């Protein structure tokens, strides 16, 4: 199928492009941009007048809940959500049940996800067996099965010697190590940022030092082992400063932030709203503002949805007993646009943080509309408003603090390898 996307505003940050240009797609790849390639005849034309045409979004963290948590979500429901959200590539963390610590499990997931209407799935393999932080996984085997990096989701490796060896072993093969910085002792019994709101509501606090102390350990080990470390879900201004200082000192490290943490803070817990129970916790307004600024400046490399579908039963309980996480695949684009608008950033900067920047971290051929690249495309109407509702969300997870919110940015079409999967 040859597709022509016409009349749209092309935003392709990897090529510094923000202009009116048609996009031509043939054999699943970008065949031309602006000028019609010789001999090209469109079998289908998409009229993108008033819309932005950009690379499909690359999400660094989307929990698909398979295997093990199919009552929360299935590959089918979450892939439909990805398509509706303009997401064409996604990394899934290893905290499935069982965790992604065996090649067979990874192969099965890759096989299940191989349908043409699905986004491309990049599993993050478990760094340690069962994520227990004791024994290393067969990383080389897991990489062959399709893992692009190794991590622990949000379960810390407590034994620093194991962490050091895991990083040494991963760096032997050049595998990136993804880690979330949280000291488990300082976070013990904590359910919210240890600040004004937790003090007032009587909730167990997770102090900022839980992040910075763990970060210090990871950064020292990154330097000592030479491992390529990606820090997931930075949550505090102090943590961000440490990452910036480490980079200035020449340590190879990248980091991301979850989209909720750009917009919400501890105050959004309100009167114990379990939808605002997130991991890491929503922190103070000053932290939130530092994250917004850091993402704009590039001190934070990428933005992700941290998509975590949770069933109603696990949220309709008192705040401290609720499971953490929020659905996010379908909110990533509109919330990215809202951040960019509030920060008065160029659209291309915003798009970069959810396309070419995360693709670079994953080391995958995605996030650009260069001629010859896979035709993973998102076409969206930046002015169209969407009201977030349970009915509107395709994800099986209806858990979001943004229920009822009206957000600008509606996806018109999503294409994966040149095949329209949404619209």
């Amino acid at each position: 199928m040859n597709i022509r996307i016409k009349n749209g505003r092309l935003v392709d940050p990897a090529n510094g492009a923000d202009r009116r240009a048609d996009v031509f797609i043939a054999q699943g790849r970008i065949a031309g941009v602006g000028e019609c390639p010789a001999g090209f005849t469109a079998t289908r034309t998409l009229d993108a007048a008033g819309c932005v045409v950009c690379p499909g979004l690359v999400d660094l963290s989307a929990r698909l809940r398979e295997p093990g948590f199919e009552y929360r979500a299935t590959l089918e429901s979450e892939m439909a959500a990805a398509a509706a959200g303009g997401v064409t590539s996604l990394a899934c963390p290893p905290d499935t049940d069982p965790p992604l610590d065996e090649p067979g499990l990874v192969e099965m997931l890759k096989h299940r996800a191989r349908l043409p209407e699905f986004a491309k799935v990049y599993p993050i393999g478990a760094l340690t067996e069962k994520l227990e932080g004791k024994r290393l996984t067969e990383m080389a085997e897991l990489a062959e099965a399709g893992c692009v990096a190794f991590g622990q989701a949000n379960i810390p490796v407590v034994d620093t010697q194991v962490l050091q060896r895991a990083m040494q072993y991963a760096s032997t093969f050049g595998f990136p190590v993804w880690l979330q910085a949280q000291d488990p002792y300082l976070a013990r019994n904590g359910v919210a940022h240890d600040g004004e709101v937790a003090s007032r509501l009587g909730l167990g606090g997770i102090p900022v030092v839980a992040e910075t102390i763990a970060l210090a350990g990871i950064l020292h080990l990154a330097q000592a082992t030479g491992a390529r470390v990606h820090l997931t879900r930075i949550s505090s201004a102090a943590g961000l400063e440490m990452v910036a200082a480490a980079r200035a000192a020449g340590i190879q490290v990248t980091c991301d932030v979850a989209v909720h943490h750009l917009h919400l803070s501890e105050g959004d817990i309100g009167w114990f709203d379990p939808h605002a129970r997130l991991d890491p916790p929503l922190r103070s307004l000053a932290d939130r503002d530092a994250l917004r600024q850091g993402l704009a400046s590039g001190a934070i490399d990428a933005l992700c949805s941290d998509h975590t579908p949770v069933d109603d039963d696990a949220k309709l309980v008192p705040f401290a007993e609720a499971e953490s996480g929020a659905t996010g695949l379908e909110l990533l684009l509109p919330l990215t646009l809202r951040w960019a608008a509030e920060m008065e950033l160029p659209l291309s900067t915003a798009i970069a943080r959810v396309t070419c920047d995360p693709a670079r971290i994953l080391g995958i051929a995605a996030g650009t509309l260069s001629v010859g690249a896979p035709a993973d495309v998102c076409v969206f109407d930046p002015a169209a408003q969407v009201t977030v509702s349970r009915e509107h969300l395709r994800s099986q997870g209806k858990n979001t603090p943004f229920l009822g919110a009206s957000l600008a940015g509606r996806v018109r079409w999503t294409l994966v390898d040149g095949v329209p999967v949404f619209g």
Partner: protein
Amino acid sequence: MSAIHPQLNARGELQHLLSLDGLPRDILTRILDLATPFTEVAEREVKKVPLLRGKSVFNLFFENSTRTRTTFEIAAKRLSADVINLNISTSSTAKGETLLDTVDNLAAMQADMFVVRHAASGAPYLIARHLAATGGDHIHVINAGDGRHAHPTQGLLDMYTIRHYKQDFENLTVAVVGDVLHSRVARSQLHALATLGVPEIRVIGPKTLLPTMVDRIAGPRGLRVFHDMREGLRDVDVVMMLRLQNERMQGALLPSPQEYFKSYGLTPEKLAMAKSDAIVMHPGPMNRGVEIDSAVADGGQAVILPQVTFGIAVRMAVMALLAGA
């Protein structure tokens, strides 16, 4: 996040009593005013008024507390309500029923009022939200203590006690002493003191037992934090002691009850720093020799037993107000 506190209805009236945080001053004062005539009911030969006749009050205690449950039971019975006591920590949730399933079942039994005690902060909010969402908003929820968050009727009875002995709040210096971090009582007291305009509110305790941002608990006006008890008690009018749970010795919060008593136990010698007519309060049950010396607990400045008596009247007032009496 809604601007209106979930315990108020659209007309700004009290629908539930969930917290003293965000409870308007006029409602708070109204409850205290309403409690005064109820103190006299207890002195009659027939200790009953018919305000809640035909109403069913369910005591839902997901966490054991004989004392608090009993005071609510007495209050409801003096208002002529039917009282059903449910000790749920040992019944249905142990069989796997969820909190909201339990609530649905009891709502179907035509309950008029739920008195809820739960170990998790915010649990009564969940119940109130659920009732509103399922058409059960004719049922009133009274928070009888949720986790570390709030114990509003205790806070109210403490305010009643202060008003009884000190008449008004505008010239007082009040100190709350002890384990504020884990105390729902302290949070309710601090909110009420701030709402009622107490000009100087102090908290006294070791850093391990004070919340990180304790100075912001009672709103933007702030309060004064002391770690030296003698200094903190200087010239106060009211001393509000908090109970120290034994399990605080675990988890490296405190070394020993003995050392705690030495630094933060209320002895006659430390009490001498306060004004000579200062009153001493305690929410009970007391740990003599841990947070309070027997000489103080049984001394002339203690108003601990009157607190219990006033507690019945205040709980009657809350129930009567919710029932629209």
